[in-house]
């Protein structure tokens, strides 16, 4: 197609990074659960949706100030993650990876249904955190909310890094990820760690949902699409790798955006998947994944 001006390309990049940040957050959620349990949680997108919807409930409908509503939402969705583990994952008698994954699909359908009854079918809106006056930058337009999205991704990553590197619980979770049997031998309660992993990734999903809602609205069936994109990001970056999730998410966002802008918007979703397939062809473990580790995993 014809050439694009610098300001246009800048605009594509900014949009790509913003959307990519959301994909990255979803991808991190996938990885936390995957690392501890070896399963892919298909309800990850629903956590994002619940985050956005609950924020609307607390902030818009009940009128709770934004910071408190933010905390309430994260607590609520974290609880949902905890309940999911307690009532859908733990009771399964012979927990093969496949049955657990299917259980998460059931959970995603259930959560979607509950959200439809609770919030209705119309998309809901949330006011932007710091207004909707766009910032101009070399001819490109940045919504203040974009900065919130990117900023919260950075904060989330920093907190998680601290958690996994410095705290004893974080280290215990990493131990479970490396070898659950050995971890339980040294006295780590693996079941608790699994529960924690669900809560944690639900909480991160909620953050993604909260920041994206002012940009894109939120409705009950938005989760599946976000989960697919987040999952692509996980695979692209390497299953189980945190830096991989971030790189994968941002890359998919940027490729989508540039592909749509410079080539054809009709094939937007195809570009990211073509790149994904290409990467898997040459490096099956993903960009930053480790083939040795993936051999140990059950899935």
């Amino acid at each position, binding site marked *: 197609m014809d050439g*694009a*001006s610098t300001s*246009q390309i800048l*605009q*594509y990049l900014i*949009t*790509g990074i*913003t*959307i990519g940040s*959301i994909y990255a957050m979803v991808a991190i959620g996938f990885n936390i659960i995957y690392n501890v349990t070896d399963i892919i949680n298909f309800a990850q997108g629903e956590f994002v949706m619940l985050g956005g919807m609950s924020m609307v409930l607390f902030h818009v409908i009940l009128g709770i100030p934004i910071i408190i509503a933010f905390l309430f939402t994260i607590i609520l969705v974290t609880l949902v993650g905890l309940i999911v583990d307690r009532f859908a994952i733990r009771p399964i008698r012979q927990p093969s990876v496949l049955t657990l994954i299917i259980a998460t699909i059931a959970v995603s359908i259930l959560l979607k249904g509950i959200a*439809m009854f609770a919030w209705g*079918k*119309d*998309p809901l*809106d949330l006011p932007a955190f710091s207004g*909707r006056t*766009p910032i101009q930058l070399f001819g490109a*337009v940045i*919504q203040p909310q974009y900065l919130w999205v990117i900023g919260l991704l950075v904060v989330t990553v920093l907190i998680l890094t601290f958690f996994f590197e410095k705290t004893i619980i974080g280290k215990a979770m990493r131990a479970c990820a490396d070898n659950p049997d050995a971890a339980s031998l040294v006295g780590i309660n693996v079941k608790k760690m699994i529960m924690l992993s669900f809560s944690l990734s639900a909480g991160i999903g909620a953050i993604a949902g909260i920041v*994206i809602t002012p*940009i*894109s*609205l939120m*409705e009950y*069936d*938005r989760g*599946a*699409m*976000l989960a697919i994109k987040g999952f692509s990001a996980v695979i692209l970056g390497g299953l189980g790798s945190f830096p991989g999730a971030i790189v994968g998410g941002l890359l998919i966002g940027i490729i989508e*955006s540039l592909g*749509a*802008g410079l080539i*054809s*918007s*009709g094939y*937007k*979703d195809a570009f990211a998947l073509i790149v994904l397939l290409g990467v898997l062809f040459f490096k099956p473990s993903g960009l930053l994944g480790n083939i040795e580790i993936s051999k140990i995993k059950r899935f």
Partner: protein
Amino acid sequence: MMKKVSKKPIVKAIVVISVILLCGIFMFSCTSKKVDEKAEVYKVGAVFSVTGRASFLGDPEKKTAELIVEKINADGGINGHKLELIVYDTEGDATKCNLAVKKLINQDKVSAVIGPSISGNSMAVVPVAEETETPLVSCAASYKIVFNEETGKPYKWVFKTPQSDSMAVEAIYTNLKKNGITKIAIMSVTSGFGASGRGELLKYASEYGLTILADEQYGPKDTDITVQLTKIKGKAPEAIVNWSIGPTQVLVLRNRSDLGMNDIPFYQSHGFGSRKNIEQAAGTAEGVYCPLGACNIAELLPDSHPQKKVTMKYMEEYKAKYNEGLSSFGGHAWDALYIVAAALEAVGNDKAKIRDYIENIKGYVGQHGVFNFSPDDHNGLTKEAFNMVVVKDDDWALVE
């Protein structure tokens, strides 16, 4: 293990029986409103996408149909016969829709079927209606529903009440031409609705002397449409026409406003016909044009307008019962059900006669236009069924 279970057969039996009973009660409360009366009950089936991605269509359609049945029965039914409506939810799924229609025809023995809500589902049930010789009045837009491309004639048993996409395109293009606009950009969602609209937009452009500078698309669940708009901005068109339904048509307005493109006239498809969209656009819909059926703008119509009376009545009744603004989609169900009811009233419960009656309806004043059916036209509307409106102070205003 076996022993343990077989110890309590009574408990098991009680559980099974109570489950069956519960199911029975649930189904009973869902489908039947039967009252023992001597006259035969007229049954009309309905298939709407009450839940799922097209719920914004099916939900008002179901509510409207239920409202009408209530009204008709309160007024003594159709020639003394009680009207019973059996609604199934297709969830927007063609397979479910197909099964539901078969069930309505074979099991519930309905006289006619109204719906489905979306074009794809309608195409999936056209063969069913044709095979079982049951009149079907679709509430979906595509002209293909009532046009057999092999024979060049309408399908014998299938009708539809919504205006075709081509009429909306022509209404928009007529307005563009009147305003002296020649260079436009089009955007569409990659769903059936968007693809069909895009096809019509491309097809009719040259006829109205329009050049299409950009042809952009986006997914129905996309979270951001800034990229497509940025590209369009670079081409500097004189107007933008957007073809989508659901949240993306609100999103596109917000992104457009962010990018400072409010000075480029913006046209939405008739899918924009709900005040909820204006509300959600939070001020960014101001000045946006769209073609709408009369029922969206009942209170704006001059008293001399032929549809003024029926549309006002529908609006008031709908508001009174559901306490929410109506969308244009409910109007399609209104037209479909009242046309079937008129046929039942005139010819009684006979599928073939109902079909023949509908095919010969002339000058029927409905929510979305004045219907003139004929053997060659099973939609019965023209582009005059659309009125161009513009969003002004968060409400519609007629363009003249």
